[in-house]
């Protein structure tokens, strides 16, 4: 294509866009709905991911040590556990700290505190709180700890209890894992269905627009216009629809996320979507406007084809 042709094509695209005012408006609105769904999907994904991450973060396993276990022994174990690839972090709480926490928790319970004082010595052992990188890896970590426990005999066995082997703790962890996995899968399915639906609607809208112009396309053919020369202005028009719809969608998200930002932050305990939107605006711009322009171009390019067979 020469420069003159490109200029003519762009001018024709803009002119058609302007003169088909109502059709243009309608297509922009349909396109806006599509892009809105795409944008909402991103937000929903962000909320889901952060919420699930927070839920997962609540999961851990605790290893309780015997009161006779020395700090050196415990720290040595801590180091071996930390060296495991599945482990994200290990927190050491000394026997004294455990006692202090226990006292703090029962500060209004005089009976328990009196019993504790009567005892004289610290009945509580130290604790290691272990967090895995992924919720599914607790099993492996717990088994590793049990092997350590089994290998040690007599005095060297310092582990009193690993709560992962408590039925209730284990059930809670398993449940958390199923919930996060299935909600991720469900989220993905819903997203795919939504996007496919809106894509279908958009494509159909473009087919309607071009159906309206089918006689014109025939006339252009009979006057001797080449296929590309007929097609290109429609593609320009489609890209223009996508661009305007994209900007409209971005504009729409501003008050909407502002309004919903605090509510989502409070309810899901995760991110404030308004802040997220502002922080990632270039990304949103690229995805939403880009989707609009590409979608408009492809949809109109394909829709014109069936009327060019003459």
């Amino acid at each position, binding site marked *: 294509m*020469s420069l*003159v*042709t490109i200029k*003519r094509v762009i001018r024709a695209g803009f*002119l*058609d866009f302007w*003169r*088909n005012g109502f059709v243009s408006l309608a297509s922009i609105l349909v396109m806006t709905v599509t892009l809105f769904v795409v944008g909402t999907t991103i937000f929903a994904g962000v909320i889901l991911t952060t919420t699930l991450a927070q839920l997962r973060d609540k999961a851990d396993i605790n290893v309780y040590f015997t009161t006779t276990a020395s700090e050196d022994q415990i720290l040595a174990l801590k180091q071996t556990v930390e060296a495991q690839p599945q482990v994200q972090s290990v927190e050491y709480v000394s026997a004294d700290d455990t006692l202090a926490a226990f006292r703090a928790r029962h500060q209004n319970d005089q009976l328990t505190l009196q019993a504790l004082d009567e005892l004289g010595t610290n009945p509580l052992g130290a604790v290691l709180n272990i967090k895995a990188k992924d919720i599914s890896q607790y099993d492996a970590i717990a088994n590793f700890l049990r092997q350590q426990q089994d290998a040690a005999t007599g005095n060297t066995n310092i582990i009193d209890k690993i709560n992962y082997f408590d039925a209730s703790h284990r059930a809670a962890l398993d449940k958390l894992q199923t919930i996060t996995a299935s909600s991720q899968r469900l989220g993905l399915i819903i997203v795919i269905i939504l996007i496919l639906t809106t894509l279908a609607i958009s494509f159909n809208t473009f087919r309607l627009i071009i159906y309206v112009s089918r*006689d*014109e396309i*025939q*006339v*252009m*053919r*009979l*006057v*001797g*216009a*080449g*296929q590309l*020369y007929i097609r290109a202005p429609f593609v320009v028009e489609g890209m223009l629809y996508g661009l305007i719809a994209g900007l409209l969608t971005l504009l729409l998200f501003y008050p909407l996320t502002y309004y919903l930002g605090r509510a989502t932050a409070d309810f899901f305990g995760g991110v404030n979507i308004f802040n997220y939107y502002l922080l990632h605006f270039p990304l949103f711009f690229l995805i939403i406007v880009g989707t609009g322009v590409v979608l408009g171009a492809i949809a109109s390019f394909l829709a014109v084809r069936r009327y*060019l*067979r*003459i």
Partner: protein
Amino acid sequence: MGQSPAYPSFFTMIYYDRVSKIYPDNSVALEDVSFSVEPGEFISIVGHSGAGKTTLVKMLLAEEKPTNGAVFFESVNIHEVPLHRINSLRRKIGTVFQDFRLLPNKTAYENIAFAMEAAGRSEDEIRSDVPHVLELVDLQDKINNFPGELSGGEQQRVAIARAIVNQPDVIVADEPTGNLDPVNTFEIVQILKKINDLGTTIILTTHNKGVIDALKKRVITMDRGRVVRDDREGKYIL
């Protein structure tokens, strides 16, 4: 009655070689039609509705494919030209239709300019030629009007201006006066005659007796898909 040769000579511009068109429902639109057109001729094709006139014209424009036979334009078999090349062939043929077929979203000027743009002409040529052809059809003051703002006769004149602007070798006018009153009909025929006098070949289909009798040019008469008469200087006989 002076029969025109059915077989092409060296100068032949258009040649229909035993063309038949049978639609899938077995209705016959054309049956074994052969004739040739020399450069500079003014040919009228007459016949009742459904005689096959429009089908004949559509074949020349590669809008329809013959079931049997072939149509040659300047020694090229039209139906062997691939779809993406057909546009350069069509630029050599100016077309005028009964329903005008202007682009509704473009002004008179833009409609004509579009045909020139499609042919890859420069902006300077367009700026100088479009007003010139509009003047030729006496529409210089409607240059910026949309087709919806023009009368039938005016729209047809824009269509003629569009057909001639690229200086085609032949103009095909399919019932160009079918939707027009007698005064406009007369004007359109006069314009076509003028174009023919300037050297362009014209193929006109019509069922208007007055037009044919006034022209005194070659007439091909069609009936039920067949050529029944081909007269050098014909009258409307049916």
